[in-house]
């Protein structure tokens, strides 16, 4: 899909076609201009910025070659943020995808009552503002707040604790809140996926005397695998967009224990007394490379999954 076949054998009618289609390009103008300036240009420009020593938007950057990248590779805080982002990804995505699948299966059963009501409950946090959820949870998770009090009351912990403010648990508190906030949307994906399974399949399995588990294991699951690929990849990309929640919930702290890569970039570029725009761009570019790798895996996975959905 990425090459233009027209280019390889240009027809004679090119100028005439262009002239005849002038209105098409007029329709495309807002998108081409906007997309060019606000999506394509930033993508290319951050590579250029990554090679600059650039202390603020008012200043002029000086080219320093690979110096930013050399510094980054030796910067413990960069690797700390990199590791935190990966830990976040590796724990939060399977949790979100798996929990949502379990819920979807229960909510997809005919026998389950109040399905619409429960779906609404789980979807509610999805529509709310991430930054505000982060702030609200700093209160809910406070040592004298309701979570801590309930845990003490039920005997699960000995003394009041604030999981978002403890270096050992702050990242996991962020993961928990993120899964809580976004579970509902993954639930909707799964419900849509489950509805593609024809009812006849279920009846055939019943006639064959398959139990609920056997039916799920041998009938439902194989049909869901292509969706698993797509949903996992959508949620993986979502797990890279956690700035609003993490910045407001923990601010990356305490002592950088929950600093994900986006907070590292933001802090370096906009919160330092001397902004290091080039250095922050280099970090963005390095991490961007990781997302490119994931995007390629994604494209391949999607193509494979589409094929499976199409053929079934």
């Amino acid at each position, binding site marked *: 899909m990425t090459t233009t076949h027209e280019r390889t054998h240009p027809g004679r009618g090119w100028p005439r076609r262009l002239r005849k289609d002038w209105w098409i390009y007029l329709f495309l103008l807002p998108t081409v201009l906007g997309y060019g300036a606000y999506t394509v240009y930033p993508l290319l420009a951050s590579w250029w910025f990554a090679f600059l020593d650039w202390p603020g*938007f008012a200043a002029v950057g000086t080219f320093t070659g690979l110096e930013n990248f050399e510094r980054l590779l030796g910067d413990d805080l960069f690797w700390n943020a990199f590791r935190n982002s990966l830990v976040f990804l590796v724990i939060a995505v399977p949790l979100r995808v798996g929990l949502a699948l379990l819920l979807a299966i229960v909510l997809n059963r005919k026998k*389950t009552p109040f399905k619409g009501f429960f779906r*609404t409950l789980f979807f509610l946090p999805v529509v709310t503002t991430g930054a505000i959820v982060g702030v609200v949870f700093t209160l809910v998770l406070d040592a004298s707040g309701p979570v801590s009090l309930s845990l003490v009351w039920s005997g699960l912990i000995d003394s009041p604790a604030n999981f978002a403010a403890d270096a050992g648990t702050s990242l996991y508190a962020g993961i928990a809140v993120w899964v809580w906030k976004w579970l509902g949307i993954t639930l909707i994906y799964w419900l849509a996926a489950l509805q593609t399974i024809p009812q006849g399949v279920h009846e055939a399995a019943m006639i064959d005397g398959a139990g609920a588990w056997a039916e799920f294991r041998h009938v439902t699951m194989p049909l869901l695998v292509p969706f698993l690929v797509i949903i996992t990849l959508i949620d993986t990309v979502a797990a890279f967009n956690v700035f609003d929640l993490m910045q407001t919930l923990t601010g990356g702290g305490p002592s950088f224990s929950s600093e994900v890569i986006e907070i590292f970039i933001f802090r370096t570029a906009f919160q330092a007394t001397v902004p290091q725009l080039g250095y922050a*761009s280099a970090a963005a570019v390095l991490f961007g490379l990781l997302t490119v790798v994931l995007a390629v895996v994604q494209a391949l996975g999607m193509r494979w999954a589409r094929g499976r959905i199409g053929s079934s």
Partner: protein
Amino acid sequence: MTAPATTAPTRAPAATATGRARPPRRPSVGQVVTVVVLLVLGGLWVYPFVWLVSASLKTSPEIFGSGLSLMPETPVWENYARAWTEVGFGTYFVNTLVITVGTVLLVVVRSALAGYVLGRYDFIGKKLLIGIFLVTFFLPEGYTIIPITQLTDQLRLLNTHAGVILGLGAGGQIASTLLYAGYFRRLPKELEETARLDGAGHFTIFFRVMLPLAWPITATVVILTYLFAWNVYLLPLVFTLSEPDLRTLAVGMTVFMGERGTDWSGLAAGAVISLIPVIAVFVVLQRRFVDSIAGAVKQ
């Protein structure tokens, strides 16, 4: 919150679709267990909102001093007045509204126009354009914030509403364009031919015939863009760092934390004010929300 009342109609089709006469029976043990587990889990999902509303009606010392009780001793409505005027949530609200409406309009117009020609016409450069869209589809916003800020600075639009609207709506939003393209592709060719016989030009056909026909997609795009623009944080935060009067609700909320750290009840009231518009729209239009998202993933 007030969600339960509106969910009843959505259940009806599922319950009658079995087609088999079901004998009257008592709920089984498994069913009861399922409902109890779902209720506990569902409780976890709404509890923070209930707690928030309760906190917004308490006094600040009462929030952390009254244990697990959710009932305020006497509702302190004054918290809302304080958040709205003194703290500036009134201004933040208007800013968020302006930015959201502007972004939604920009995205709808831009992606409907592009989606129309992408879905129905062949032209030179089409494959290149679609290729660029696909490559940049999943670009996370955090990684381009520096060049976008630099560009906006160059355009002298930093610290303006227009700058934020362009930053949110001018790039990205590929899903909306593809939704329009997919819908327009399925409309019959005769529509344009008939209109052309009547002497209508490309623009008349688009605005009078095509765009009105695509209202289900427009509804989806409006909903998804509205959610995105109302909730976005990073870009408005960076763009209004030196202009407090332009803060959105999300940005204002976090500044509040820093500046009036102990006014917990005012903070909670501000959070409720900020969340009501999205939650209200969701409760009213929840069927469309869910269909929009389910539809977008099936594409």
